[in-house]
């Protein structure tokens, strides 16, 4: 316990200062607060790592009013990573139905945008926009945490 306290004292605040400039919010009524449900529609796991980083202490996406939640009923936005495989197309739609309006969909990473390198593979039923209406897309394979944070700030408008 004492050790932990010393660690806390030693490190202090590790969150980087926010980049100035903001846009959005994408949807009226979501100003300042967006709860996010993350859906892995068939990702390699790279984007998950970056999303995790974006919510970690250094980038601290939570300070812009975003929070990861467990249930789509509590969510305002779906954060979809990876190509939409055949088995995940249905669950993805059901997840989207479970989200109460107003709701947003963000495609994270090249696979989610246009199947990336997996385009035309036999198990792939398409990119996210082929299944759901997409409001924002984050390029990159994997995308940089800064971009993810930027997209989140675009949603919350903070």
């Amino acid at each position: 316990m004492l050790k932990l306290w010393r660690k806390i004292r030693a490190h202090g605040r590790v969150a980087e200062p926010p980049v100035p400039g903001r846009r959005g919010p994408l949807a009226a009524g979501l100003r300042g607060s967006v709860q996010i449900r993350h859906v892995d529609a068939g990702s390699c796991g790279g984007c998950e790592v970056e999303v995790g980083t974006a919510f970690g202490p250094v980038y601290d996406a939570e300070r812009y009013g975003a929070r990861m939640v467990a249930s789509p009923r509590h969510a305002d936005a779906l954060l979809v990573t990876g190509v939409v495989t055949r088995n995940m197309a249905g669950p993805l739609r059901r997840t989207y139905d479970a989200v109460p309006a107003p709701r947003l969909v963000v495609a994270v990473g090249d696979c989610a945008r246009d199947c990336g390198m997996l385009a035309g593979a036999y198990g792939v039923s398409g990119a996210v926009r082929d299944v759901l209406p997409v409001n924002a897309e984050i390029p990159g394979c994997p995308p940089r945490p800064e971009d993810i944070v930027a997209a989140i700030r675009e949603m919350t408008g903070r």
Partner: protein
Amino acid sequence: MSRLGIAGGVIQVLVVTGGAPVLTGVMRQVRARLEGRAGPGLRQPWSDLRKLLRKEPVTPAGTGELFRVAPLVLLATTVVVAGVSPFVTTASAIGPAADLFAVVALLAMGTATLALAAIDTGTAFGGMGASREMTIMALVEPTLLMSVFALSVRAGSTNLSAIVTAVVRDPARVASPAGLLAAVALILVTIAETGRLPVDNPATHLELTMVHEAMILEYAGPDLAVVELASSMRLTVFLGLLVTLFVPWGIAVTAAPLALAAGTAAFAAKVTICGAALAAGEVFMAKLRLFRVPELLGGSFLLALLAVAASVFLGAA
């Protein structure tokens, strides 16, 4: 039904309703800072609520009236407790309802209703959360009542106002073993009943580790807003009971505006400090295994019982 009581009741309901989300914000902020993050700020919970109230309410297939009414019952029980307990003033808005037994029962009532709603959804997670919550509650209630007992032995009544007045008149009695034991027991119980670490992790995303969260997985929009508000108010009310029972300093004894203002400020300050301390403590804790929780509650029960015993045999003086 004195003027003092009415004034206190109104102020308390307003303060608790408006302040509870802020308290949640404070606790999140403290935690964030200790983790080296910047934190979303104190207003975040309120903007979450504002947004939720504007979202569309959802009725899951196969749920009944109870599912829709439960959030209101939870809120109502909490608001009534917030209204009748002597937080800001020593008098109570509804004296006959300020009995500690009644207060405990009211809070249990809210929990039970939410558990029923969770079962009503018929999902596995709902049932799981309800089962766990009721198990914890069944073990928490005895401890609560025993600490009530310990506190009421000297005051000679289980009425909150009476106890608080007695403590205000003779502050030294708080420093007695009975008082301290009861305080520790009540703190443990508060942690367990409001679903904080190490009993329950309010920020978990993994359903299998959930207790309270698992019960509200199906709520959306305004319903969820009511549940969230009520939960944060429950936390505030529990902390408020703690501070008003053990450190009722600054509480208003007259209906003079100045006294009321001072009482309100003191109450807010004390609860905020308690909440911040709780959040700071959580940083150093890991969640307890579910079947170790009974040990914790058994311990708190024993402490409460010892508090009663101490209030008898050390209280002879």
